[in-house]
């Protein structure tokens, strides 16, 4: 199987999952991947599909895009943001929609999320992938939305 190229859904600093303040992500319990920390003071930010495929789950604060290879990529916008019950989040597509990589799925305000005492760091995880199956992450580097984040070999 050829690697699945996973794009950064938003601009920010690339962070390893181990540094995400949520043990479910940090311990890779849902899969391997990386996270993006939006810049301080970032305004309303579009969060885009990391791969082309079908939106199989679409919550205001998190969504899953299933790639044609079968890989399902979860984008979780901020940590514990389910508590905000969608406040400040705008969802642009419905479940079942077919999206291209880079299509906007959700818009949110990282600064407002931080203002509620929550982290805006956004894990991008290949669901059910083996721990540490995403090698060679350039953690600490800045990425733009739509730039390659990592390649998942499967």
């Amino acid at each position, binding site marked *: 199987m050829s690697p699945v190229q996973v794009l950064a859904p938003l601009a920010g600093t690339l962070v390893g999952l181990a540094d995400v303040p949520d*043990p*479910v992500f940090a311990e890779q*319990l*849902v899969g391997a991947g990386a996270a993006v920390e939006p810049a301080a003071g970032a305004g309303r930010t579009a969060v885009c599909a990391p791969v082309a495929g079908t939106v199989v789950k679409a919550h205001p604060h*998190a969504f*899953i895009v299933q790639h044609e290879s079968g890989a*399902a990529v*979860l984008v979780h916008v901020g940590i514990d943001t*389910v508590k905000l019950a969608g406040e400040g989040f705008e969802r642009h597509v419905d479940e079942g929609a077919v999206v291209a990589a880079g299509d906007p799925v959700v818009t949110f305000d990282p600064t407002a999320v931080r203002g509620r005492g929550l982290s805006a760091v956004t894990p991008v995880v290949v*669901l059910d992938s083996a721990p540490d199956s995403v090698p060679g992450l350039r953690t600490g580097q800045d990425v733009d939305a739509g730039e390659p984040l990592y390649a998942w070999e499967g």
Partner: protein
Amino acid sequence: MASAEEIVSGLGGADNIVEVEGCITRLRTEVRDPSLVDERALRASGAHGVVMAGTIVQVVVGPEADTLADDVQDLL
């Protein structure tokens, strides 16, 4: 794939469950008595992981979490 019955049993039974909510890949639950939670049984039933903090128990079950939370709710 864990069944709703196995989740309820692993969390110490219906009477021990205060609240259950699905969130994409995990069940967020609140229990009365955390000592009644059987982490090993939950993992054996197919949960990827169990994260406990006081009376809050998160059971990582994968993308079926929302459906499973509804099924668990029906048993309470």
